[in-house]
């Protein structure tokens, strides 16, 4: 709860910065604020120091249980890293204060999505997160593709939100409450009968959440939006937004509807297999690095949904948390390199832009290689442990064939990740000018690399939740 207040306060402060003209010191203040939010979240996680002022459960709307606090820590870390990485996104643009405020409010939306205990807050959280994203996707005002991305995202996103609302309404109709714990009590009681209204409501909820998490077959917006938006915004979508969406998805079952994944397992399996295959196979044919990463993120959602399906497994939530964390850090690293390389080649993010990168800047090439190897699931990088957990859970529940499918799909994944690696190491670059990066960027790249390597080898993140 404290984090929401801190970050929302920062957002308002940012808007005021435009009026009172203290834009220069704004970025340091925001970074400091996010650090404070992170520290507070970690302290709450360790022993709920601040619960004297605020009840962990806020008026039955938000519930900062361990699940929520863990995800808040993760989201704040991602946000902080993201702001540091994309520092120049705000410096370059003329109206940085607006964009910053939008990002900060989006972060608040993410917090709501991982901590809701009432469907109204789920809806509000999604909206608070999505609306800034619609605007930010179009923040490269002169670019046609950016505008297209914004419009597409807005149209499709609001449509999905409509379906979500419809689903919530139908659920309300059959259960009579928005509160997750009341819904849980009613739906798990012995005399609960699953009416068609309830079933349709659930399916609508699932569809809307799959849309937000960009799982196939609800993924069509993702490639266009990812490739059209400015790279900084794309990396926010691929990490922060995805983490929030997946956490909200899981929380739906964790709090309100624990029996749904099992009852509707067929829908989940379709989502998983479709995401794994569509994501991986279409990614093979991409030549734009951002589109490629968009499709790869769809395939990662396929893996994540395995843990959502088997969330009741003792390791289910742990596995998902670790997967999301590993995926987000890795993706941040990858997009950071894509952004720097893209800026060098006039916003061209084709794979050819990566040709011979190792000669132009070994650190960038090294980081991207580690990140891609991690995404491909090569040990001992964190991506391996993430995938390992998923395979483990699926085998635990006897889904042997699902494991085989996941393995085959990730082998396909290796193909396109290595396409970039091969380009970096053996491709002939059109320009041999070394890419210069600042000291901050160097430090960040090293931190991200160490995180990618260390998160798996050190069991801390895995056992956190």
């Amino acid at each position: 709860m404290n984090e929401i207040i801190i970050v929302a306060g920062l957002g308002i402060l940012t808007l005021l910065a435009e009026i009172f003209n203290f834009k220069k010191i704004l970025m340091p203040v925001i970074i400091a604020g996010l650090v404070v939010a992170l520290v507070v979240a970690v302290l709450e996680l360790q022993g709920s120091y601040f619960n004297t002022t605020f009840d962990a459960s806020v008026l039955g709307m938000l519930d900062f249980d361990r699940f929520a606090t863990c995800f808040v820590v993760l989201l704040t870390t991602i946000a902080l890293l993201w702001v540091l990485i994309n520092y120049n996104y705000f410096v370059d643009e003329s109206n940085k204060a607006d964009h910053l405020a939008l990002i900060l409010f989006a972060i608040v939306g993410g917090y709501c999505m991982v901590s809701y205990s009432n469907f109204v807050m789920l809806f509000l959280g999604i909206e608070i997160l999505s609306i800034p994203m619609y605007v930010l996707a179009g923040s490269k005002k002169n670019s046609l593709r950016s505008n297209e991305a914004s419009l597409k995202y807005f149209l499709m996103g609001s449509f999905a939100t409509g379906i979500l609302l419809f689903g919530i309404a139908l659920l309300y109709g059959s259960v009579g409450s928005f509160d997750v714990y009341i819904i849980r009590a009613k739906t798990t009681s012995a005399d609960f009968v699953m009416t068609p209204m309830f079933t349709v409501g659930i399916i609508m909820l699932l569809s809307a959440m799959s849309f937000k998490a960009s799982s196939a077959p609800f993924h069509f917006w993702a490639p266009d939006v990812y490739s059209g938006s400015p790279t900084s915004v794309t990396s926010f979508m691929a990490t922060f937004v995805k983490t929030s969406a997946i956490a909200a998805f899981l929380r739906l079952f964790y709090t309100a509807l624990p029996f749904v994944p099992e009852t509707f397992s067929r829908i989940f399996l379709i989502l998983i297999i479709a995401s794994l295959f569509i994501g991986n196979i279409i990614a093979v044919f991409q030549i734009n690095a951002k589109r490629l990463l968009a499709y790869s993120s769809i395939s990662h959602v396929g893996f994540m949904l395995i843990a959502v399906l088997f969330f009741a497994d003792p390791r289910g939530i742990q596995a998902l948390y670790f997967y999301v964390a590993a995926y987000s850090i890795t993706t941040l690293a990858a997009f950071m390199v894509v952004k720097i390389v893209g800026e060098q080649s006039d916003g061209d993010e084709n794979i050819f832009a990566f040709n011979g990168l190792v000669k132009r800047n070994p650190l960038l090439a090294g980081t991207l290689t580690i990140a891609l190897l991690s995404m491909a699931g090569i040990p001992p990088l964190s991506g391996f442990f993430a995938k390992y957990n998923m395979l483990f859970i699926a085998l635990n529940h006897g889904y042997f064939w699902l494991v085989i499918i996941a393995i085959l799909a990730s082998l396909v994944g290796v193909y396109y990740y290595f396409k970039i690696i091969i380009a970096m190491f053996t491709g002939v670059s059109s320009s041999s000018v070394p890419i210069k990066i600042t000291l901050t960027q160097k430090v960040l790249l090293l931190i991200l690399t160490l995180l990618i390597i260390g998160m798996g080898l050190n069991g801390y993140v895995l056992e956190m939740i």
Partner: protein
Amino acid sequence: MFPIILLLLPVVSALVLLALPSSISKKVAMGGSILSLFAVLFTLNTLRIDAASANLVFNKIWLSSLGSNLSFSIDGITMVLLLLTNILLPLIILSTFNREINKPKAYFTMMLLMQSALLGVFMATDGLVFYIFWELALIPIYFICLFWGGEGRQRITFKFFIYTLLGSLFMLVALIILYQHTLNHSFAINDLYAAGKSMTMEQQAWVFWFFFLAFAIKMPVFPFHTWQPDTYTNAPTQGTMLLSGIMLKMGTYGLIRWLLPMVPAAVSAYSNTVIILSVISVVYASCIAIVQTNFKRLIAYSSIAHVGLICAGIFSYKAEGIQGALVQMFAHGINVVGLFFVCDVIQRNAGTDTISNLGGIRTVNQRFAFWFLIIMLGSIALPLTNSFVGEFLLLNGIYQYNAWYAAIGGLSVILGAVYMLRSYQSMMLGNTSSNTLTFASLKKSETLFFSVIVIIIMVCGVYPKLILDIAALDVLKMIVH
């Protein structure tokens, strides 16, 4: 304590190497690898004095929620492989002397990291740790082949990578299945052994084939060998040496340590099939080797033939077979590295390794012909060379299993003589060609390389007890269980 020292030494030397200027990278790498060699000799000494020494085991709690601990241990079987790895590494680095290496820092770092990963594979006694090192060994060699390889390397190295990754992913599934059958949920090798034995026949069969797929691709055994000749031919000389000299042994070692004792019922049910596959790969690869026109490719195919025999010997599950496999793994490692260096010398001096373009090198450079002769005789298992002992024991083991298989497998010796002698004849004897006229005399480093190899070949051939004794007890223990 020794396992962790052995593991970290190469990593430390890699770090030192990265910190120093690239002009002395070669020497630093050489120094580091010699240090590792001494460390392994010291470990060998400890093992001889007291096989139960606590220093040979390393155990540290690691990912307890995954049931995996950092545990390594060294016994006789492991020791043979450690010895091989650490003897070959200085030789492989020596083979770069007097050669221009592009980006030496990165090259030697990769080699040293590879060494560390390989040692990890051989020492790991925890399923997950084993798997991690197994995959880890793939990364440096992939980049060695990708960055320093020859024409068309992107496609070839990629095929190699995907192939081996496919196998190892299935091995991962097998490990998870085993893990789920352990009583105390642990990846410790002994718990996995117990779990494997407690499984039903059908489950054992799955685990067996998944493991076998990983190992068979790595070795490689027919029909999983298609990545191998291209990769060997295409990789830089040192990469080929690492692949054939050491990495191939990961597969055969895996069979001995991870497969045979793990699922005994499945092993006895399917060993016949596997031996047939191995014997096929012996004959098939030998026949293809005979018609090869490129010497490097010829060695690649001969390697498939040799490893096929090793695989068959291991699956005979007789003490002689497994002992023979260990001796032969060691011998093959030494010989094949020697052969690839021969190929490298020819390539450098004559500018080609196409057999028909060469000839009469003996008249130009007698010493070189002499070294080559001994290494070649070693590789065709002439008595008093190291691989004679290995092949003899292997065939003995296979004979005890089934005389026919031994008879067909024994063809490897005859066919081996055919292709090796023929290629020797047309490259070394006869009239000199325009390519070989200017064959330079050997450099000091080259002479040193060949003399070390030849001494090992002779010593192990005349006094094989050196190697046999290291693992004898452990092999017997394994057979009895």
